[in-house]
């Protein structure tokens, strides 16, 4: 059964230095509050997995939490680069960041395979692409029925997955609604999981085939209202597109970034 914890306690207890951590949310429901708590607790040497690193990983990388990033699209959507990510990869600031790069299709399949308990995902992918030349985790297998050559990638099986969701009921069952991305897969693929939620309610109000994660499939739940800001939570608040644009200026400059981090993360205590 999921345990209700403060965000501070959940991060402190379940995320260790050196862990492989997947924080998911495809544009929607990005677990920013959890990311900031990880920064505050100065977790180090994390291998971060995420299809679209987004600002949350730009911030964590800039704060020095990560040693490796596994991803498939590393930009500020509709705006441009993730400058902290680039600074770490290109100039080793604040520390060198190793990257392992996939396509979305491969990562989506790898999460799916992880949730399905399989060691690999098989897809019709990477044909003609140079990505297999720079990612030794991409292999090819032959279909025993048709002889077709198909791509294979290792499944994603993080130590910890962190997602944000709209709400939990008092037993710890969680509803994710709207753009559900790969949140369910991320949680089911991981050894441990932390789910932050907008609110805890008596009744999820879920429709019959809704995306509901049962309490017994989750390790810890922390209430974190507005926990996805500046991304959004359908039914709660909109995406702060203006901040996404503003971030470009903040993140371009190391000092501006550190000032932002101090003011908005370190001195803004969290839960």
């Amino acid at each position: 059964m999921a345990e209700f914890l403060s965000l501070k306690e959940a991060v402190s207890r379940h995320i260790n230095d050196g862990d492989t951590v997947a924080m998911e949310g495809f544009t929607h429901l990005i677990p920013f509050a959890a990311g900031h708590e990880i920064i505050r607790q100065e977790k180090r040497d994390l291998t971060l997995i995420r299809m679209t690193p987004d600002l949350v990983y730009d911030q964590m990388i800039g704060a020095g939490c990560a040693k490796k990033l596994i991803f498939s699209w590393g930009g500020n959507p509709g705006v441009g680069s993730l400058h902290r990510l680039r600074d770490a990869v290109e100039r080793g600031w604040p520390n060198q960041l190793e990257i392992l790069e996939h396509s979305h299709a491969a990562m989506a399949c790898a999460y799916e395979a992880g949730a399905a308990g399989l060691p690999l995902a098989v897809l019709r992918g990477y044909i003609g692409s140079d990505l297999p030349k720079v990612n030794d985790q991409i292999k090819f297998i032959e279909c025993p029925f048709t002889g077709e050559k198909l791509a294979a990638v290792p499944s994603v099986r993080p130590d910890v997955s962190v997602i944000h969701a709209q709400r939990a009921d008092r037993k710890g069952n969680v509803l994710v609604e709207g753009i559900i991305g790969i949140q369910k897969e991320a949680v089911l693929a991981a050894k441990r999981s932390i789910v932050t939620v907008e609110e805890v309610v008596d009744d999820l109000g879920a429709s019959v085939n809704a995306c509901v994660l049962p309490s017994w499939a989750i390790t810890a739940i922390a209430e974190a209202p507005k926990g996805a800001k500046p991304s959004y939570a359908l039914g709660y608040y909109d995406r702060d597109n203006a901040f996404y644009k503003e971030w470009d200026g903040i993140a371009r400059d190391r000092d501006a970034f550190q000032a932002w981090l101090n003011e908005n993360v370190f001195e803004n205590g969290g839960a």
Partner: protein
Amino acid sequence: MSLEFTSSEMMSVTAARALNNDMTCFVGIGLPSEAANLARLTHAPDVTLIYESGTLQTKPEVLPLSIGDGELCESALTTVSVPEMFRYWLQGGKVSVGFLGTAQIDRYANINTTLIGDYREPKVRLPGGGGAPEIGTNAHEVFITVKHSKRTFVKDVDFITTVGFGRDGKARDNVPNIGRGPTVVITDLCILKPDPETKELVVTSLHPGVTREQVIEATGWEIRFADQVDTTPEPSAKELEVLRDLKARTNAHHAGQQ
């Protein structure tokens, strides 16, 4: 009487016209998204737009800034998980057109959104592949829209993120279950299509007022022109009005958020 329009508008309108009501289009963010929604709001009201965030048959009022804006979900027929999107809908062969932008494109329509320079020592690091590598091969065909410049149109891309026709034009030959690949590239200067034999991109239509020299100047290889080069039809007043409204709505919406 001729209308006033910019080369960007010319590009978007032309790209929009490539779509029709019967198509199921997997839409990339940015220029493709602008063109696809313009098509939906003008001549192709029933075109089916799919974004990789899982939104099936979406009809946004304003252009999304990201691939997963709430607008896309709220106006969609239904929203599925990202694995389902890539497995059932794209790989499952349900997408007739993949509509992509790019940072670099070469003469065989290979596209590069990974980096400029060497992979380990990049001059410029770009966001990466995202959905494109498998959109490029699993969609029945691919449309590309991108601004024309020598920096973008290079002889050989530095990195093939998403295959067009490979380094030699033959990458799709004898590959089972692969789409036709790029069938048209729409820029702010012209329309290019792959030569049916060699797969090299050739100019098939110049936008009004654009000269061959301008295209040659903006292309990083010795660009060829088709035997018959058409003049692309101008945008209509209606198309321009809808496009400008859409962009104004979009800007107001994204600026207006706190």
